[in-house]
């Protein structure tokens, strides 16, 4: 009889955090936020909280979130220099959750 020592295959799901910051600097204040949960354990939605999860983008890094995308800095279109539109400073973070772990631990 042989002992199976193969480690269990992790079942990874993604949690996404989107932070909108006051300037293009990652350490500037959070002005908006959104969350999406690929584990299905929570269902964040529009207008579900008045307080941001972090005060700055760097605070999310310190808590283990990984930055996967930052908004580009694009000059205003000619003639539209004074227009206001979407929030400019969008930063997307992720966490990977191992669904096979008993505690549903975050792996990165």
């Amino acid at each position, binding site marked *: 009889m042989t002992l199976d020592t193969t480690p269990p295959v992790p079942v990874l799901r993604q949690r996404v955090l*989107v932070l*909108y*910051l*006051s*300037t293009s600097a990652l350490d*500037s204040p*959070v*002005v*908006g*936020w*959104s*969350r999406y949960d690929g584990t299905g354990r929570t269902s*964040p*939605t*529009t*207008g*579900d*909280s*008045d307080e*941001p999860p972090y005060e700055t983008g760097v605070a999310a890094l310190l808590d283990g979130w990984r930055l996967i995308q930052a908004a580009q800095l694009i000059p205003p279109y000619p003639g539209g220099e*004074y*227009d*206001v*539109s*979407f*929030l*400019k*400073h969008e930063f997307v973070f992720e966490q990977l959750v191992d669904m096979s772990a008993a505690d549903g631990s975050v792996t990165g």
Partner: protein
Amino acid sequence: MTETEVTKNPGGALLSSVRMARFVARGSLRLDAVVPDEMNAEALRVLARGMAPVPYGTPVSQAYAQGSFAQRLLELPQVAGALYSLVGGEPAIDHHAVHIREPHGGEAQPLHADAIIDVRQDAFDVQLMYYPQDVTLEMGGTLSVPGSHLRRTNETDTGRYQNLRGQDRLVCPAGTVVFLHHGLWHGGRRNDSDTVRYMFKIRFAPRERQRLLWDTADLHDPRVRTELDAQFPWYEQAAGRLERYNRVLLWRELTGDAAFDLVDPWVTRVTNRPAAGRPAAGRPAAGRPAAGRPAVENPAPATAPAPARSEEDAA
């Protein structure tokens, strides 16, 4: 803002300039508990039955039968006065709708502005939203974002934004009426309570030029500029300045004052285009140096005096 700032007139309670400036900055106007209790009770029955549609463009006086609930709602002095102040007399009905949120039912709407992108800078529609019940936080009252109405976005393209600092999750007493600028970002929230929530909405389009339609007795009150200078917590640092710029342009349209600006001259500064020639007072006499300056053989082309820089630029 207190109700004492609303001036009564025979056509209703017109808004003051200060309150109008607040609308221009925030994109909304809230009138708490202006509908009497007996009408609120009646509304729950009327709205549950539904409201027959009104064709687009129908003048308001022809849209609702005399004595009907909607007609009496619009004749309440504070509602009539606010409506007149915002869009003038005899506005057209764009559409109306009864919104019903079942208990523990449905999902929150994505943040949106109604209709399609609408970038008019010299006119605006308003949406009346009437709440016949006390609305608690759990009932999922309308979410709105103060100061978002001048952002150029199309309908639900803002759906990715779940929460913004300073957002307004409506909690209000029964009989509250809210007017929204057509561009304001908003959405119905999820009803997590055991109570059915009702809201009646009417969109109005102006049929006259929106200029000085309110009570202008306080047009030069310093609080007008204070209201127009409002900074909302969700604004990015730089875009917040552009918001003021765009508000000034709207206020100029609403008042006809083409020189209006805030204490920090956001529009004046960037539209400074002097005509040819120097201001006479600053021009040195030919062949004779001005005090403290050497004579210039070939004077440079005329330029405007540099405007004073703002202390705010130290931010």
